[in-house]
């Protein structure tokens, strides 16, 4: 039983390391702020959760605090990326796109009108 848990934990740790590396690579290679945010936040959230759960499988007696860290990362990391994207859109960073579709512009305009009137 313990050996099986050990193999599962090792697999989780290896997957997590690969995804952390891919998230950092996306930050270096992507062309614009929003795509960088996408790559850097989603891939690195999966990588961190997978690595920490792998350590939890290797040490079942530490599992309570590890579960707290995993839940906290799963809640907090999308929240911070959302706040960053909203802030930099309102600051005036234009999204990189070939199609020219920008649906958030209309919503921001409507919201500003409601606030000012």
């Amino acid at each position, binding site marked *: 039983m313990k050996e099986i848990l050990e193999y599962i934990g090792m697999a989780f*740790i290896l997957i997590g390391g690969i995804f952390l590396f891919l998230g950092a690579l996306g930050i270096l290679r992507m062309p614009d702020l929003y795509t960088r945010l996408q790559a850097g936040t989603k891939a690195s959230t999966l990588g961190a959760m997978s690595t920490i759960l792998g350590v939890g499988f290797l040490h079942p007696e530490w599992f309570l605090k590890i579960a707290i860290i995993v839940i906290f*990362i799963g809640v907090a990391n999308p929240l911070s990326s959302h706040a960053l994207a909203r802030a930099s859109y309102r600051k005036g960073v234009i999204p990189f796109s070939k199609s020219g579709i920008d649906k958030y512009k209309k919503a921001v305009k409507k919201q500003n009108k409601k606030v000012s009137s």
Partner: protein
Amino acid sequence: MNIIYIIVFTLMGIGITISMIRFVKGPRSGDRAIALDTLSIIITASMVLLAHVFERYIYIDVALIYGVLGFVGIIVIARYIEGAL
């Protein structure tokens, strides 16, 4: 068993180096904040893995506190960029 830790720590080290490059190079302040966010996530994960390698339970507390402080810092930076602070 031991080779997996070497592979994972090497990948994490390359990831930290790459996001430091983006942190220095980034054209706007938003890019720098994203690089800082990814850096703090990688350091949290590597802290938990170090707790397993060194068999020290106290490092998990360090990872928890580091994660909370990184989250609060990113929220404050985002509010500052938006101009609401």
